[in-house]
Structures are given as structure tokens and as C-alpha cells.
């Protein structure tokens, strides 16, 4: 698209950016899910500068241990002439909690991807989304097309209420990820309508 003509710029409607957060433990398929549906290759940015610099401000020197960064993966889907949907994959653990405010602020909703062999990994994300009232759906990633647990067992283990949808997803499949995102958006609609 040619964005360089100023007359065209004057008539073009500004883009509307929206986002959905995809949370889950390491290796659970977040980046795979983003990549399965993104129209661009999954991009990565480092996102721990605030913490690092805050430490430097306080001490006046650079302690090595604070120079850790976390990779934030993201993708994009152009929805129509105006709306751009961004998908952010974020680690679900507590120690990345400093990023969650930026990630969830204004988000339409979240998809929590769960590996039934490591349910613990997603507790902090579920807790956080419940606390801030962000609509979310829990999706159990089907590795090799099979479930290790019954969905009801997963619901029980995670202690998520009946109002939170629990679905399965194949993170490698574009259609499956699409359906999971649509489930998140329906949850968001329900919540928006209930207000």
C-alpha cells in the first residue's frame, strides 16, 4: 500500500489497533499458535528495559543480574480496511508479571493455552486475568491429537468457573487457532453486554 502520498493520507482512515493476549507456560505452543494465524512472520522484541533501567537509576551502576530480558512474540492479522489485530504471546509465569499490565491494558481478551502435563504453569495467568476482569478462554493444546485428561478434570484442577469456556486447540492449525480466538471474542462480547 502506498502510504506516502499526503492527499491519500488525508482521506485514509486511521488504523484501529486491537489485541488479544495468548498466555501459557514455556513450550505450550503460544508461538506456534501465533505463527499459525499471523499474516506476518512471528516477530520478537525484548521487553524488560523498564526494570533494568530502574535498577540503574537507583544504584548508579549496572548490576549484571538485572540485565535479563524476556522475549515477547507477536503477530498481526489485518481484519478489514481499518482494524489490525495484534496477537501477543507471553509467558504465563509470575516472574514475567511486570509485563502483564502493558499486555492486557485495552486487550479484547486472552487465550490461555494449557499443557495438561504442566497445569501449574498457567495458574498465575488465570489468576491475573480473573483479578483484572479480562475475558479469557482456557484452551488445552492437543499434542499429537489426543488429550491426556478429561476437560472436566482440567477445569477442576484449574478451578476456573463454569462461565469460563474450556476448549481444545491444535496450536499448529490455522483453523483451530482461529476458532479459539473467536471463542475469546464471544466471551468478550458476553462480558461487554453484561456491563
Amino acid at each position, binding site marked *: *500500500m502506498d*502510504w*506516502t502520498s*499526503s492527499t491519500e493520507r488525508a482521506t485514509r482512515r*486511521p*488504523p*484501529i*489497533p*486491537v*489485541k488479544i493476549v495468548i498466555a501459557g507456560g514455556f513450550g505450550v505452543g503460544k508461538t506456534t499458535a501465533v505463527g499459525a*494465524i499471523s499474516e506476518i512472520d512471528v*516477530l*520478537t*522484541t*525484548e*521487553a*524488560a*528495559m*523498564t526494570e*533494568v*533501567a*530502574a535498577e*540503574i*537509576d537507583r544504584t548508579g551502576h*549496572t548490576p549484571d543480574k538485572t540485565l535479563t*530480558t524476556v522475549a*515477547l512474540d*507477536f503477530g*498481526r*492479522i489485518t*481484519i*478489514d480496511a481499518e*482494524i*489490525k*489485530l*495484534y496477537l*501477543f504471546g507471553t509467558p504465563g509465569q509470575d516472574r514475567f508479571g511486570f509485563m502483564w499490565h*502493558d*499486555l492486557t*491494558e*485495552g486487550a*479484547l481478551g486472552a487465550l490461555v493455552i494449557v499443557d495438561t502435563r504442566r497445569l501449574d504453569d498457567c495458574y498465575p495467568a488465570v489468576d491475573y486475568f480473573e483479578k483484572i476482569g479480562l475475558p479469557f478462554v482456557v484452551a488445552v493444546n492437543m499434542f499429537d491429537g489426543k488429550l491426556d485428561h478429561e476437560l472436566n478434570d482440567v477445569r477442576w484442577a484449574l478451578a476456573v468457573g463454569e462461565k469460563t469456556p474450556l476448549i481444545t486447540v491444535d496450536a499448529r492449525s*490455522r*483453523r483451530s487457532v*482461529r476458532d479459539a*480466538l*473467536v471463542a475469546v*471474542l*464471544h466471551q*468478550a*462480547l458476553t462480558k*461487554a*453486554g453484561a*456491563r
Partner: protein
Amino acid sequence: MVDPARVPPYLLTGGRARPVDENLAIEAQVFTTLAGRADIPILQFEVRDIVAACDDEPLAVVEVASKLGLHLGVARVLVGDLVASGHLMVQRPPIDPSRRVEIIERVIRGLDQLD
């Protein structure tokens, strides 16, 4: 060219860790103003790269960071500065709750049309 990954983040931002615009969402769309385009030849380093990148097409703050190999926090600080100086304009995510339902429905329709 210096590998940006090897430059301490605080050197790029004059030691500041917080953006001038605390509410600058990471998905906010940034694009170059005509004044910004006119200044590209006289701007330097990362700031010039940002203004040039956003002149081609609107980019999310997080895309600016990724494209230029900057830490996300650094990109937010620099973009905030460039908006304040009139080189960039920013289009924020919609916050109007009444707009939200319409937008969610449009996103659902858009996703439904994917193969």
C-alpha cells in the same frame, strides 16, 4: 554500524526509563507527520530510523521495536519523544466502551473469513 543489542538501553534514552507518555499502548499505531518526513535528513541514529520506518506505513510501537532491534521500553520512550516533538502521530486503541462491541463483532467477522 553498532549492533543496537549491545548498546545499553539507557544510553539511547538519555537515562530515562519511563516514556513521556505513560499511556502509550504497545499496539498504538505510529506514523510520520509531514514535518517528520521533512526532518529525516537531519535526524540521527535510532530517531531517524524510527521516523523513516513509520513513513512507509503505520507501525505499532511494538513493531517499531522489533523492526529496529530496540528494547520495547526504549522504543516507547523514543516514540513518545517523537510524538511530543511533532515528528510522529499516534493512533491509540479505542477506549470508548460503546465502540467496543462493534469492533469485537467486526473482528469476529474478519476471522470467520479466514480459511
